[in-house]
């Protein structure tokens, strides 16, 4: 059983800080009904659950909130807040808990992927030239192997294409053959599409890392490339 909550030394500063960033988070409206906790797969991990977390926040148990590793096992899936009768925004609380960890103390896997994304445009850290080479190589293979696709075009950075598509960088990097089926579908429909070369990957580990600055940078670079260079009116993410 968990130890009782000590009301001494309460410092409700963390709550105030999150409320400032998330004005509609509704922490003070929590009815303690436990609907969040009943439907949360992360309940009980690290001796924590969403209701308990909100109670701790409201009681000002800032130190415990800041250090619990639960921040990284909750997936911010939103099932709790979706079911919450008072719409308490627990995922955004968790996001801000993650953000309160010193950047270099956050999980190395997520940190590494975020840094690679900022530097190379994808979480795998693959140079853009390699991505382009893979795409062209796989497309050529399909054109040769399947005559009905001999005219199939796969392009990167084709200006004026209607649709820009980004997908998870693991696909071109670790399983390039998995690119083909999507291309064939697009070819069959007759879609006018291209891959962007800037921030071409669909994932975003800076979001998971709660690195606002990195997250914003990735989005800004991407939006600028699509709007001002490629001028594609439609962006599609495959996940």
């Amino acid at each position, binding site marked *: 059983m968990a130890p009782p909550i000590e009301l001494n030394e309460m410092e409700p500063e963390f709550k105030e800080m999150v409320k400032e960033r998330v004005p509609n988070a509704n922490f003070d409206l929590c009815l303690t009904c436990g609907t969040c906790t009943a439907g949360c*797969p*992360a309940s009980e*991990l*690290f001796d924590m659950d969403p209701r308990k977390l909100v109670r701790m926040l409201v009681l000002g148990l800032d130190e415990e909130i800041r250090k619990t590793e639960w921040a*990284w*096992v*909750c*997936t*911010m*899936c*939103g*099932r709790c807040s*979706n*079911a919450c009768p008072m719409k308490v925004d627990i995922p955004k609380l968790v996001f801000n808990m993650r953000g309160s960890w010193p950047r270099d103390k956050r*999980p*190395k*896997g*997520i940190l*590494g*992927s975020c840094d690679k994304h900022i530097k190379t445009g994808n979480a795998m850290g693959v140079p853009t030239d390699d991505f382009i080479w893979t795409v062209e190589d796989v497309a050529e293979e*399909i054109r040769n*192997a*399947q005559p*009905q*696709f001999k005219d199939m075009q796969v392009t990167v950075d084709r200006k004026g294409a209607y649709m*820009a*598509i980004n997908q*998870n960088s*693991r*696909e071109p990097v670790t*399983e390039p*053959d*998995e690119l*083909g*089926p*999507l291309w*064939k*579908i697009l070819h*069959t*429909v*007759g879609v006018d599409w291209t891959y962007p070369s800037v921030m071409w990957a*669909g*994932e975003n*580990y800076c979001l*998971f890392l709660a690195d*606002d600055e990195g*997250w*914003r940078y990735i*989005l*800004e670079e991407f*939006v600028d490339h*699509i*709007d001002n260079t490629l001028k594609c*009116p*439609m*962006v*599609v*993410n*495959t*996940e």
Partner: protein
Amino acid sequence: MKKFKIPHKFQFTSIIALYAQWMREGKLKVSSDWNKDLKIKFTVQDPCNIVRKTWRQQAADDLRYVVKTIVGEENFIDMVPNGINNYCCGGGGGALQAGYTEQRRAYGKIKFDQIMATGAQYVLAPCHNCHAQIHDIGHHYGGHYQVSHIWTLMCLAMGILGENERTYLAEDLKEFGL
């Protein structure tokens, strides 16, 4: 983009919505005839970011329309609960890279039980994170289902799936249509 108030001119959508639209418009002619006699059972994962957190019930409906068209209505078995109330697979939010493997798998046990209750041989996972996590918990808890991409089954149904594009098919479909 909304969070940071970054203005953008383009529209943003998911490939699932487009699959559904193209199927409805007849631009993507997919039939489930291939599975009429095989009767292979499929279920589908609702990725949190596509369904609950972004396009909500519309995405859940589109997803089911697409999958049922590919595999046949009678061969689709939904998870319980599903759609916007479905459980996260446990791989989201960076969990697959966070290093808390034991907790991630404990989290995924609910998803594993949900999948096993459907009895489906295939789980279609339209998100790379879900795909990896559902595969991992299947392996860890001893499930025998196969995790596949939607595009794999769609191309299989249209008879255009290449020989080297079958990594995520089980033995029953490895040679199908070649």
